[in-house]
């Protein structure tokens, strides 16, 4: 069968149709290509059509949490919403404005003023840190121009006990004090920005490109123990109240790993309450306040003397009549005692100023200086805490005889409580001292960073002498911890204000009481330093004020760290029961 020829089917007509179709197709293909290859260019030329489908999306990053040595939360960020609005888009409806103002906890006139004042702005924040429920209520109002931006708020569940150590962040989640400031870069996350295609409802449907790589905030693992910190905080707080003292601090150090277990500074503040974050309360006194160590220095004087060989454990010193003239200055015992002749153990037990001055002057200044310098006097502890003080230990060439004598009982030198604690780790760790840390790491601080201050034998001898301080006849029987042997030293220091110890009327500027000690004596694990500033009660010595705090904190620390009670106590217990 022959095919019918369609009327008008000419080659010209076919060619025309073909060309037209090809052109149309070419145009479509060209457009598709352009749209795919150069979306930005198109969106710039057609801002209203395409721009609403292309946009940036930012994926928020949370600030890392801070946890204690057991992983318990010390600081945590939770998402909050910032409510803001575009004043140019905001409707002129009074009702809606009043409703929004009410939900924001403000008055209608406040909002009106704000809208008028910033009328030329594209965006103004109205309220930060709005809770999700409130946000939903505001969203339900469906007011044009109101925007929600993601923010977060940081919480500190431990409150006052941890406040001066952990610090806090500002409204923009940037660290302001303490660890939050010191490790801001580590904790801080940066949001990721991507270019996305959105559908008509504004939902992202495709990711086109990464604009900026973001990073989640990292978690900071501290060596502090929440329980010990609380115990230290509570004990110190009680002592401050009981003795009407103004400020105080406690430092607890694990000597094996050179880690800080607790660090309390009082008065404290509630970091969750913005209004309280100011003044002296935010200062971490344990690392920023410099004080003269007073008698807590004497163990180092004795250790230096033993180590340099000018005395032995059997040396007897005559301290009669309780005064000792060096140049123009007369050194006196505390409250004018006269202890007669004494050995080194009794020197520490009674805290004799005359005795320490005498043995200090037997030493070459250089030998004495070397021990103090190695123990970290006048040197930062390496903890990297913000605002950490390094203290001052003058060069021995500038001491003079009197400088050397008063140095022996802790005057003319200053240091932070943390430095004092670190120096005591030398006694605990058989003469070795290491940098101190509050960051958890698997291996702790290596032995290659350790250095020798004095011999192991000296350290052990001094520890045994210091044990006498807490025994019958010592200055700090109240520092004892049941079931453990503890060694320590009291200190009661006149305060130095502007280079003077007395004001114009010849009165003292008050004084500072200290107790520094370690336990167990045979194989020390813990060093505790307690400082109570300006006690005003009747009993105002280191032995009466600081020692009981030491006893409580040390007892708790030994238990928390699982240090077994010492065998020497067994017979006592068996005898009793």
């Amino acid at each position: 069968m022959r095919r019918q020829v369609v009327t008008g089917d000419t080659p010209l007509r076919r060619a025309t149709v073909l060309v037209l179709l090809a052109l149309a197709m070419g145009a479509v293909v060209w457009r598709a290509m352009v749209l795919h290859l150069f979306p930005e260019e198109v969106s710039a030329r057609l801002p209203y059509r395409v721009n609403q489908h292309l946009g940036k999306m930012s994926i928020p990053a949370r600030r890392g949490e801070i946890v204690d040595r057991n992983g318990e939360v010390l600081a945590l960020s939770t998402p909050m919403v910032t409510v803001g609005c575009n004043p140019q888009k905001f409707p002129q409806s009074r009702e809606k404005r009043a409703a929004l103002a009410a939900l924001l906890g403000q008055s209608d006139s406040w909002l009106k003023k704000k809208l008028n004042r910033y009328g030329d702005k594209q965006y103004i924040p109205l309220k930060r840190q709005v809770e999700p429920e409130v946000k939903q209520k505001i969203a339900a109002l469906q007011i044009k121009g109101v925007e929600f931006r993601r923010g977060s708020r940081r919480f500190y569940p431990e409150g006052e006990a941890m406040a001066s150590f952990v610090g806090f962040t500002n409204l923009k989640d940037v660290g302001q004090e303490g660890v939050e400031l010191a490790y801001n870069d580590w904790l801080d996350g940066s949001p990721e920005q991507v270019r996305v295609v959105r559908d008509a409802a504004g939902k992202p449907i495709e990711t086109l490109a990464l604009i900026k790589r973001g990073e989640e905030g990292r978690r900071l693992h501290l060596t502090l123990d929440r329980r010990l910190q609380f115990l230290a905080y509570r004990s110190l707080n009680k002592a401050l109240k009981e003795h009407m003292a103004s400020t105080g601090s406690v430092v607890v150090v694990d000597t094996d790993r050179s880690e800080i277990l607790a660090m309390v500074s009082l008065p404290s503040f509630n970091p969750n309450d913005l209004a309280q974050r100011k003044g002296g309360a935010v200062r971490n006194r344990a690392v920023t306040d410099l004080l003269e160590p007073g008698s807590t220095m004497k163990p180092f004087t004795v250790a230096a003397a033993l180590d340099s060989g000018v005395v032995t454990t059997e040396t007897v010193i005559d301290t009669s009549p309780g005064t000792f003239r060096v140049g123009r200055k007369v050194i006196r015992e505390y409250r004018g005692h006269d202890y007669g002749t004494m050995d080194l153990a009794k020197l520490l037990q009674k805290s004799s100023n005359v005795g320490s001055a005498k043995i200090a002057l037997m030493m070459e200044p250089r030998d004495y200086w070397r021990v103090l310098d190695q123990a970290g006097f006048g040197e930062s502890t390496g903890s990297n805490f913000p605002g950490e003080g390094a203290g001052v230990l003058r060069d021995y060439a500038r001491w003079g005889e009197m400088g050397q004598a008063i140095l022996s009982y802790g005057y003319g030198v200053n240091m932070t409580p943390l430095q004092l604690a670190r120096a005591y780790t030398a006694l605990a760790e058989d003469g070795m001292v290491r940098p101190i840390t509050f960051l958890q790491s698997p291996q702790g601080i290596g032995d290659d960073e350790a250095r020798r201050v004095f011999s192991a034998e000296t350290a052990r001898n001094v520890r045994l002498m210091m044990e006498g301080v807490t025994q019958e006849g010592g200055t700090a029987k109240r520092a004892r911890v049941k079931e453990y042997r503890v060694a320590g030293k009291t200190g009661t220091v006149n305060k130095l204000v502007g280079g003077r110890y007395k004001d114009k009327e010849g009165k003292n500027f008050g004084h500072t009481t200290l107790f520094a000690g370690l336990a167990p004596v045979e194989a020390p694990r813990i060093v505790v330093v307690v400082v109570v500033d300006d006690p005003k009660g009747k009993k105002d010595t280191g032995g009466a004020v600081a020692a009981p705090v030491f006893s409580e904190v040390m007892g708790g620390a030994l238990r928390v760290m699982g240090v077994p009670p010492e065998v020497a106590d067994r017979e006592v217990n068996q005898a009793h029961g």
Partner: protein
Amino acid sequence: MNFWYESSPLFRSMMLVVLVLVVVKSAVAVIYLKHREVQLYITLQGLQQQYEQELEEMGRLRLEEAAWGNLARIEDHARGKLQMSYPAAAQRVVIH
């Protein structure tokens, strides 16, 4: 020079049909995959949002846990409500 299939009209027409079908099929597949991509992307977004919400929830719960576990609070309860007290030194015996 002619290949054998070029001279076979039957084969040529069959080939044409097959190729047209393949092209159409591939076009449909492209459309389908694009659609699928959008669908999966939306699911991903949903899951990411859910993840965020779960994280939020976890943060809230951890805070709540920390608040309940606050040692000052526990001590208050132990001393106040439960009338507990810390044993004095004389009441303690260490078992070795």
